[in-house]
């Protein structure tokens, strides 16, 4: 049986009147790149925090047999840390991490001695992703890891994540870029109204009907060589 990170009948609310997650079930399998998409405020980030067991959910709702690493959407790191120190902090949690190799893969090896305050937003984001990869987890939860990256670095990042998936790491990514999800996801979970309304391959999830349910008629779905492409609708 393949290893997986599972959450069953997950419920979470900050106040009793407004549930953020309502009886939600989710499974991240080893070796898959699983995108979690949905509108703003639909509960995607909360789902990741529950999976990372950072929010108080009932003990029997999240199951994980191995270590899970998590990169939050917004953090306020100490800006005096050098790039190398940041990655070493991640590597403290795992043995035998090839820090140099990892920095080379993310193309940040030339930044090793710079402090975070001396980096651009995109460079900083790549450093944080490198630090979380240095933890060598079995399951990785990334909350909008590509939000500050240009298209070139987004592609590079997801190609790299794919190589980690091929080594057996299960990666869940919250992302707002539907076309990136369409291109790189093994599976996509669509979060709406505090629960997952659809989970499957990109072709099954990224459909006009599903997007209409989320965003009304503001976007349309076309196909490019069988790959769904999401475009803004004409006025």
């Amino acid at each position, binding site marked *: 049986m393949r290893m997986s990170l599972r959450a069953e009948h997950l419920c979470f609310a900050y106040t009793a009147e407004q549930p953020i997650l309502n009886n939600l079930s989710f499974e991240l399998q080893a070796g898959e790149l699983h995108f979690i998409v949905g509108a703003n405020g639909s509960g995607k980030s909360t789902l990741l925090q529950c999976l*990372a067991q950072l929010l108080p959910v009932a003990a029997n709702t999240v199951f994980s047999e191995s270590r899970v*690493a998590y*990169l939050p959407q917004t*953090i306020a*790191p*100490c800006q005096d840390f050098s790039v190398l120190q*940041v990655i070493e902090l991640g590597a403290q949690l795992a043995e035998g991490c090839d820090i140099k190799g990892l920095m080379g893969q993310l193309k940040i090896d030339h930044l090793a001695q710079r402090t975070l305050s001396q980096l651009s937003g995109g460079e900083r984001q790549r450093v944080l992703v490198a630090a979380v990869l240095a933890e060598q987890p079995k399951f990785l939860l990334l909350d909008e890891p590509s939000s500050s990256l240009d298209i070139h670095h987004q592609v590079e990042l997801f190609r790299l994540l794919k190589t980690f998936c091929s080594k057996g790491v299960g990666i869940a990514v919250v992302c707002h870029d539907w076309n990136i999800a369409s291109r790189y996801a093994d599976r996509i979970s669509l979060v709406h109204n505090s629960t997952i309304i659809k989970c499957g391959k990109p072709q099954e999830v990224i459909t006009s009907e599903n997007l209409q349910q989320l965003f009304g008629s503001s976007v349309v779905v076309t196909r490019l060589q069988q790959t769904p492409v999401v475009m803004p609708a004409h006025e």
Partner: protein
Amino acid sequence: MNKLLLLALLAAFSIATIWMAPHFGAAEYSEQIRALRLPRATLAWFSGGALAVAGLLMQTLLRNDLATPFTLGVASSASFGAFVCFAFPAIAATIWAPPLLGFICAIATIALIIKLGSSNLGPNGILLVGITINFVFGAALMIVRHLAPPYRMTKLEHWLMGSIETSSYEPAWVVATVALLCLTIIWMKRHDLDQYSFDIKVAQARGVNVTKLMNVGLITSGLLTAAVVTQCGPIAFIGLLVPHALRPFIGHSHKYMLPACWLLGSGFLVFADTLSRSLLVFGRSSDIPVGIITALVGGPAFLLIVLRKSKKTPH
């Protein structure tokens, strides 16, 4: 510079100061006077180290470069407890009354901060709580000062400036015992402190129990501060200056910062204390309270560090 080499240099400096301290000052060839100076230097050594480590802890836990061991009001409350005994000798039935009452006040303050901090206040909230407590005890100190008999004022003023005046080893052993206990606990948390100092959310995601770490840090830094303040009074600047002086060379690793802070803090206070009792003012020994010397030396040094750092940081 290699961190281990720097630690070795700091160790040499720290040991050299305590080794040399009894030989400085008037009547330097008298064995008896030298024997009396060693307990004083020992107390300065332990107190300087304790204050520097407490300052490092505060800056890490509150994620604030301006934090010092005195920021959260623990020192003010300990000062208040000791001060009451000094001001009203009827209360101070024994020589142990001031430190004892100081410690009791400090522990009550730590408990109050932890209790208030348990409602998810975060570092900034805890900082505000501490600053408020600091003001309250500052005002209480003023009341005691106002009500104290005039003939006690000289001693009170002298103590409030932070001074190391002892001819016995007991005060040093009090600080040493507390320091040994606290340092052992802090050392076990050094990796958690590294993660926390980078980012709180990331530390949580990496399995650090942030609430527990904060409580352990508040208790240990509070006890270290209380131990020093009840024995020597509030000695300024060491807790602020020493971590800032070392960070550019050592970075944020607590594995190196903890021993480095201890060594530089202890050496610096012994040096300052030796200077304070050796300085001749108008041709006679002045015995200026060491808190004045640490502030006079530490202030400009801290300013240099800040200016140097601001040149390196992009705006």
